[in-house]
């Protein structure tokens, strides 16, 4: 496999050892060399080279630039870049050109990041394998017959294949951490409200967060640091800046690491269980305190998540009706038929399934039993975490029950695919930050991912512990 761009590349750029132009050219070459990977939906070669030249000129002129200035960043194709297409990997938006920049894109442009292209995803971020992209297949860089995970599968695959140093994904139930785990890279979901959602095409608005995907913890932090902070255009954006964010290197001695014992056992691939044990032992050996934590409402997390997320999605996706933009079916005889035909032809099977589920969940007579109960579960899950973080600094858990599965393995039965989110959805429901990092390979050579979670807005602690974990795991090789 092509070596990944680790965080050293940021330092090399900053010190002028590498130019942005050469880095962008390397990326473009690698992308061209691996067309079968299918990570990108669109490449902006001309724009990327022009941006790189501009950054190199400014840097040689002595300007102090952001740590990610001149670094190519791939964007999941549900994030708007003005003048570029945002397809959400859907037929219904296949020709939609975004008329404005997402807040994160504004921040990336200000920092001088190179917006190299848009990556494949499950249609409207609904899926865990990128198989539900209506536009193309994306393969796991570690195995061509395995899925890259999803829904940010294109972004994770692009970083894992060494095509780009950095990428952005979005997470509603695990769509950053799960593909990062499957592809063997770092993926981080920030606290809800830490990163503006303005310009992110919504799936489940109360759960969605944009987050970084990178080869290592340090690079992921640098990207998060650029995109985080309050945005007045997003009412759910937290009223805080990003000054509290720091990447602290600290001895793990005295850290309290929580282990949700109930999560381990049935259904967890033994090699992932072993990686958990090994990392737990590393922390213990380094003087960290290992504490068992109870997250008793986790068992209701999957149904609660699929009710809340789909309810919001059914409403969020109502705007794609063929009237003002996007795909419009031809041959309809009246308005209702136009709506029905457009949406029947424009949306893929998983999106339709979730719209139907969400519509049902909000319908008169079912709202109380489904939507409100799901919200109650959500409150209980948040309470579970609040209590846990009263006792521990971070919680260590598997990211996924298994390593990357095969194409078609889970599309026949949606429920088996939904169960794949079992370890990731609780962090989205509770709005807490979580980071997945690679923890070795299984017997088939597929990456294992483990995750750490921390209290809301305690990203600094999360990254500190993640750096410790990364250091331990490096010694395993």
């Amino acid at each position, binding site marked *: 496999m092509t070596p990944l761009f680790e965080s050293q590349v940021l330092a090399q750029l900053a010190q002028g050892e590498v130019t942005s132009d050469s880095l962008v050219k390397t990326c473009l070459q690698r992308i061209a060399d691996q067309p079968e990977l299918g990570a990108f939906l669109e490449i902006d070669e001309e724009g990327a080279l022009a941006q790189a030249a501009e950054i190199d000129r400014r840097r040689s002129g002595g300007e102090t630039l952001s740590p990610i200035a001149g670094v190519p960043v791939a964007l999941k194709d549900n994030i*708007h870049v003005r003048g570029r297409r*945002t397809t*959400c990997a859907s037929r219904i*938006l296949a020709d*939609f050109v*975004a*008329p*404005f920049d*997402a807040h994160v894109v504004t921040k990336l442009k200000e920092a001088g990041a190179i917006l190299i292209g848009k990556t494949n995803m499950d249609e409207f971020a609904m899926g865990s394998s990128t198989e539900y992209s209506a536009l193309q297949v994306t393969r796991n860089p570690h195995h061509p017959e395995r899925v890259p995970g999803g829904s940010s599968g294109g972004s994770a695959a692009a970083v894992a294949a060494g095509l780009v140093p950095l990428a952005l994904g979005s997470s509603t139930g695990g769509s950053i951490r799960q593909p990062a785990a499957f592809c063997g890279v770092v993926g981080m979901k920030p606290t809800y409200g830490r990163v503006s*959602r*303005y*310009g*992110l*095409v*919504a799936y*489940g*608005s*109360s759960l969605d967060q944009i987050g970084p995907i990178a080869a290592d913890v340090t690079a992921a932090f640098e990207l998060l640091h650029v995109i985080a902070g309050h945005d*007045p*255009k*997003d*009412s*759910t954006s937290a009223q805080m800046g990003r000054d509290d964010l720091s990447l602290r290197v600290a001895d793990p001695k005295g850290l309290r690491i929580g282990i949700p014992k109930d999560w381990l056992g049935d259904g967890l691939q033994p090699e992932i269980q072993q990686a958990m044990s090994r990392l737990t032992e590393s922390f213990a050996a380094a003087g960290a305190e290992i504490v068992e934590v109870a997250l008793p409402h986790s068992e209701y997390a999957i149904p609660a998540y699929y009710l809340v997320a789909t*309810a*919001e999605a*059914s*409403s969020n*996706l*109502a*705007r*794609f*009706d063929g*009237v*003002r*933009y996007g795909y419009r079916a031809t041959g309809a005889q009246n*308005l209702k038929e136009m*709506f029905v035909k457009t949406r029947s032809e424009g949306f893929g099977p998983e999106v339709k399934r979730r719209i139907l589920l969400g*519509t049902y969940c*909000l*319908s*008169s007579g079912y*709202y109380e039993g489904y*939507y409100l109960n799901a919200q109650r579960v959500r409150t209980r899950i948040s309470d579970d975490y609040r209590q846990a973080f009263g006792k521990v600094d971070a919680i260590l858990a598997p990211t996924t029950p298994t390593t990357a599965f095969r194409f078609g393995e889970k599309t026949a039965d949606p429920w088996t695919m939904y169960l794949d989110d079992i370890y990731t959805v609780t962090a989205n429901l509770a709005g807490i930050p979580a980071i997945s990092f690679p923890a070795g390979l299984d017997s088939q050579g597929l990456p294992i991912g483990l995750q750490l979670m921390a209290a809301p807005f305690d990203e600094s602690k999360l990254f500190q512990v993640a750096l410790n974990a990364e250091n331990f795991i490096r010694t395993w090789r």
Partner: protein
Amino acid sequence: MHGYEAVIGLEVHAQLSTSSKIFCSCSTTFGADANHQTCPVCLGLPGALPVLNQNAVRCAIRFGHAIGADINRRSVFARKNYFYPDLPKGYQISQFDQPIVKGGSLAISTDETGYKTIGIARAHLEEDAGQSIHDGMPQSNVKSYVNLNRSGIPLLEIVTHPDLRTAEEVYAYLVEMKALLQYLEICDGNMEEGSLRCDANVSIRPMGQASLGTRTEIKNLNSFHNVKRAVQHEIDRQIAVVLQGGSIEQVTLLWDADSQKSRVMRGKEDSHDYRYFPDPDLMPVALDETEVQALSRTLPELPRHKRERFESEFGLTQTDAEILTQDKSLAGYFEGAVAVSHQPKLTANWVITELLRELKGLERGIDACPMSPHDLGELVSLIDRNVISGKIGKTLFRLMFDTGKTAQELIEAHNLIQITDSAKLEQIVNEILDQNDDQVQQYLEGKTKVFGFLVGQVMRVTKGKANPQLINEILRRCLDGRR
């Protein structure tokens, strides 16, 4: 006597007079080119997010204070989901089970009892949808058009309890509500431009029955008179149905102002399931206690209080006070004129009979009146002090209204000051009498109706500037002197 009474509830949608829309910074000015006052937020583009306009919240709070309602310190925006081409997100952001204003009431004037209190159930904030245009455009035979300038304009939906009983009460309620909204300066009340809209819920029941009958909802009511007519039409229709042994079906009706008839828009089975749920893009609206209190101190004198004061302080009749207070600007105009004339009743007469008639002729509101309150007050004062006659006053009023000049300027230019010089008038009178021997003889023979003719002659000669009382007095004296 049919023995039925009507039970009516109203939903008034008041467009709030904020300068920008409720969830984005687009302008709310009426009449811009189609789709020119839009942005990603009010176009409902993917990725755009709403941010609440705090001025709309302040409008709602002030309204709540004015009707004596509970202001909910925490209210929630919800999504009302339905598909329509002029609803760009496929849902309307509204408030559902936690509105910002709850309870309160509005007193209306009625012929029978003077005043009646109408209970308000709630008032909530929401965004307007766009407009669908089906007629009058190129290719209207095969296409419909959508204008989204109105999408996202803030609305306050004010819902009454079913306290209204007649079409007249409905009319009175709307007049009073419009006045209140205008006094608060939160809505311009212009029904033609759609800034005030009304839906009516109507049912009937046998007199004395406590439970409610099946109701129908009437939509598309675009003027106060249409509301009144449509409600009366619906009451009559329902009574006729029941008297013929039929029963009322729960339907939504559309009022057609041209034919003065309603037609069924949809039945109960087609009623929408709006699938309301809290909008995850907006935080609950938490009000600052200090601000809520502070806003209660920003209320102006409200229409009813002003009316009562006009009656007690100025001695106006209830009718005159009502006319003068229906429009805040008119009331202000009147008070401005009184401050100069110091003659409230006379001023009221001039405003109501002359000024309003002229403005109506020009189809203008009081805000576009060419004559300042100060100038009208001065005119009234000149008449009151007998500097000019009432008749000259009317001439002068016309000139002032047409030219925008002051009374003083015009009096000088046209030499309109009343002749109050007795000696001069006596000289004129004697000249007239000399020229009209026949009439003088008739008068002296007891045919006193020629007196009017002689007054008219004096007026003609003096071009109306002679003081009428003085003319009468001098004429009578001179005539008697000729006996």
